[in-house]
């Protein structure tokens, strides 16, 4: 019995030591991460990993199951300019910032609106796209309502959890009820079914939904709210990455490539056959 006990003690000591040792090595890697820019990591790996979540037309699956959209175009162009391959890592929107911080990918290029709250956790590049939010309303339920009328206890809004429209609706229409869903399809469906009066999302999503269901849905106000601009999001304490992405965006604003691509996905409908 004595021997087993001593043996057990030994095992415990080894286990504890290995745990503290492994923690020491983790601390080491995170220090290295701070000292070494993600740009270097990308070059060494030969692959840039881009985190994104799907929403039309930023990024979506086409009929062949491949990723298409504005973000994949931006990602491919960025990778081509860096001389590396591109890999997209689809990630749930609600967990996309923690995943970036945990190092699952190098940068988020997913139409993320620059907000002060997010900026506390991650760094943002200059905006590479500007898209405002619009209201998509159930026509029958909101007939004759002015914008102020939406701020009422009788009005129900829907939005995608964790996305900017949720915060915006809470601020702009504090009295209205707000239902949150995991993705845009469900929040639109609630409006279609008449369980909610309206939803908000970034253009051209709402206009498209209104076009698809002209007898039930419409975009009542020709106003783009909260046009804050979307930026690449990256981990903090990485000035090199911030500088690189900013220069890249500035350069392609200058050449007009960003505007051209943005217009293709956001203003036109030419890509629609690819997806549905």
């Amino acid at each position, binding site marked *: 019995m004595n021997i087993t006990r001593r043996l057990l003690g030994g095992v415990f000591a080894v286990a504890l030591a290995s745990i503290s040792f492994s923690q020491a090595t*983790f601390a080491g890697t995170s220090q290295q991460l701070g000292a070494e820019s993600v740009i270097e990591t990308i070059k060494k790996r030969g692959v840039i990993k881009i985190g994104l979540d799907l929403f039309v037309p930023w990024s979506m699956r086409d*009929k*062949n199951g491949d990723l298409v959209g504005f973000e994949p175009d931006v990602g491919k162009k960025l990778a081509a300019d860096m001389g590396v391959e591109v890999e997209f890592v*689809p990630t749930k929107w609600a967990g996309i910032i923690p995943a970036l911080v*945990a190092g699952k990918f190098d940068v988020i290029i997913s139409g993320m609106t620059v907000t002060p709250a997010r900026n506390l956790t991650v760094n943002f590049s200059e905006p590479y796209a500007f898209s405002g939010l619009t209201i998509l309303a159930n026509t029958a339920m909101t007939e004759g309502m002015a914008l102020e009328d939406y701020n009422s206890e009788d009005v129900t809004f829907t939005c995608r959890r964790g996305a900017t429209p949720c915060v915006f609706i809470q601020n702009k229409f504090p009295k209205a009820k707000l239902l949150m869903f995991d993705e845009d*399809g469900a929040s639109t469906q609630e409006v279609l*079914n008449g369980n909610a009066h309206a939803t908000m999302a970034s253009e051209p999503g709402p206009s498209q939904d209104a076009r*698809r269901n002209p007898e039930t849905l419409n975009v009542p106000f020709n106003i783009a709210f909260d046009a804050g601009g979307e930026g690449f999001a990256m981990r903090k304490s990485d000035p090199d990455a911030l500088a690189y992405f900013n220069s890249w965006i500035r350069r392609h604003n200058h050449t007009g490539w960003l505007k051209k691509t943005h217009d293709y996905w956001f203003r036109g409908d030419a890509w629609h056959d690819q997806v549905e």
Partner: protein
Amino acid sequence: MEKLFKKLHWLDFLVLGCVIAFFTYVFVQMSGNLNYHWRWEKIPNYIFKYHTGREEWFANVLLQGLIITIRVSIYASILALIFGVILGIARCSNNLVVRMLARTYLEILRNIPPLVVIFIFYFFLAEQLIQALSIENWSYKVAKMENNNIWEFFCGDMRRFPSLVSGVIVLALFESAFVGEIVRAGIQSIDRGQREAARSIGMSSFQEMRYIVLPQAMKKIMPPMANQFITLIKDSSIISLISVQELTYKTAELVSSTHMIFEAWLTTAAFYFVICFGLSLFFTKLERRT
């Protein structure tokens, strides 16, 4: 068919009629309230499709997801079985510390919602393990190799390997607690006298387990274990939350791309049902034979 009709009493027909009437009512109500444009004809393309670029048949998003779900379930259940057997034996150990550690692990897992467990394991355990073993660099190396067909067959796209690993680990650790309980119950169902007899004819505790207890316990363990395996397949949908690209995750992707909410989710439900129900029938048959 005639026999079936003869077996049924008129009351049975009444009950059946009521059930059918109820569902018809629900369906009519639903289609009245539901403003939805059904597009079922598009679904088969998202399972299997002729690629317009590559000119070949390929598994589209839903089938890709299904394959990953199956892969994750198989690996996770093997791992869960190993952990679970160790845990089960530890629960019956003579050593108090071992017994208490096993009990603590079990009680913690059993009394925290699976979703929370998955997040905790993912960020605090799987992530650290993947970094410590530098699995990521290794899998990128394999992904670039020429003859990596074997790896691709077992693990899918090697660049997604770390996410597969974390999914499998997280799921296995979570399920191992329940497998452990099944194993413990099996071991304890063996009469004490048998174990004492084994020791008295000079078997070591390992031999006692190997030759006396486990062979008998296995028979009792099999049915609940099969059930647990089916539960594991269903539970695997939770790991979509840590962005493992399995069936549930792929369905969510399809929904956000095409807004075919109901078709996509109903198809996915059918996939899960066919697999789980099929396995359940298979296990029942197996049990009857042994």
